[in-house]
């Protein structure tokens, strides 16, 4: 299995632990990835709100680079926003001839060509559907006993283009972490918005949204939240202390990447999974406490 890896800007900064753990897990499972050379920002949601065609052109440049570097290889986009933007650009470029014409012409100026046959995929999709849950189950060396995990997918991975999971009740992450031995709790907010960039721009609204997710996860007995998007992780972890004095509860819930939990189950070292970089330390799984953390 060979894939092209599109990290996106977040995984090189605030989402560094995601990159570390993702690559460590892929290495441990023998999944071969090469970083896309000379990639640029996907444009995220911000660019789309300012100039749509420019946003699609930014995304298309990455897709064109992927076609040139390894034709036919799927692109792995671990960040939800990158995943959505790259997919959305493909939809719009093929759906609207005008957008296609303009993007193709502009790409030609920088000596690139985009034909439109890149498959953009999320690591969850690859682990669950290409590698397989059973095979991962066989690789588990240290089951995550004692962890009650709330699996939080966030919005942009299943909406609006859900290619590998259900839009309203996605199950990939649940199945994966259940295979890793975690106790997965059932909660209905797994695709509700985390507040996105609003935590920075309009904190009242942004932290209001992330706070609600945390409260519900705790109410349902979660002691860990697993995420698959750098912005979701940031919002849920970094603003936890805010606005919680009123409710009186003073527990802090670790918010980690699903790849970090999977890596622990595969017997990888916490440091190689970036677990030392988290602001709220993960409670060690009940079993083999000393050995793991």
């Amino acid at each position, binding site marked *: 299995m060979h894939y092209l890896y599109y990290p996106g*800007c977040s995984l*090189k*900064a*605030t*989402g*560094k632990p995601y990159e570390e753990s993702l690559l460590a897990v892929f290495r441990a499972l023998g999944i071969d990835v090469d970083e896309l050379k*000379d*990639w*640029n*920002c996907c*444009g*995220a*949601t*911000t*660019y789309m*709100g*300012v*100039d*749509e*065609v*420019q946003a699609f*052109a*930014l995304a298309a*440049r990455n897709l064109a680079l992927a076609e040139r570097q390894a034709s036919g290889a799927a692109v792995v986009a671990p960040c939800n926003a990158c995943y959505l933007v790259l997919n959305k650009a493909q939809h*719009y470029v093929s*759906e*609207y*001839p*005008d*957008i296609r014409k*303009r*993007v193709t*012409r*502009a790409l030609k*100026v*920088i000596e690139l060509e985009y034909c439109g046959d890149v498959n953009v995929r999320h690591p969850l999709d690859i682990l669950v559907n290409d590698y397989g849950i059973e095979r991962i189950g066989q690789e588990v060396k240290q089951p995550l006993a004692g962890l009650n995990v709330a699996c939080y997918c966030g*919005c*942009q991975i299943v*909406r*609006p283009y859900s290619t590998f999971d259900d*839009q*309203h009740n996605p199950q990939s992450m649940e199945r994966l972490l259940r295979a890793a031995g975690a106790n997965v709790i059932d909660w209905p907010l797994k695709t*509700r*918005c985390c*507040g*996105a*960039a*609003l935590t*920075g*721009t*309009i*904190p*009242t*609204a942004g932290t*209001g*949204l992330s706070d609600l997710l945390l409260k519900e996860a705790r109410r349902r007995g979660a002691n860990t939240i697993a995420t698959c998007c750098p912005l979701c992780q940031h919002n849920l972890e*970094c603003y936890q202390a805010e606005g919680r004095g009123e409710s009186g509860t003073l527990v802090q819930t670790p918010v980690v990447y699903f790849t970090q939990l999977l890596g622990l189950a595969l017997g990888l070292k916490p440091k190689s999974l970036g677990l030392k*970089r*988290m*602001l709220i330390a993960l409670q060690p799984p009940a079993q083999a406490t000393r050995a793991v953390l």
Partner: protein
Amino acid sequence: MSDSTFEARPKQQHHFDLNFGKSIMALPGGEDLYRCIQCGTCSSTCPLSAYMDHTPRRIIAMTRAGLKDDVLASNTIWLCSSCYSCTVACPKQIRITDVMYSLKRRAIQTRRFSVGPVAALARAFIASVLRTGRSNESRIIVRTWLSTQPFELVRQAWLGLRLWLKGRLSLRRHRMTGSARDIPKLLRNLHEPPTFNRKA
């Protein structure tokens, strides 16, 4: 953060721009705008409805009615976090998130920035991408706060320090490995009057 952003504004507009709805419908993603049955599913699934001065359902009705100034001055279009809840829930398959994007672009074109910090973030984001081809969240958010709410810098300093100690915050620019000049060159060559006809 003052609450002025969230004050419901009374309707002020006295004249209607009857072509406004049509002009939004002509943009990509807006094709189905006139199929809206005003059921309110979008408003009830929207996690940010509570903070908006007009809910998404009302924005659609106002857009079609031609209340252009009220729509473009509302905070709704700036609060949309593009989570696509409304888009997948809409029984008429209207791509509401894309309509919100179109309205936001129209507001920017007519220089109406009703929610300052969101516009400042977009400005900083685009400056970063044009310069280096990549975005650096830490730099972007610092620039946003400097220009709109400097107090946030003080309030969030402790968080910033903790993230820095964990190696998750850096103010250094991330650069593309190749020439970042490709990006402005690419974007410059896109412009030509758009028509956006959907494939038959």
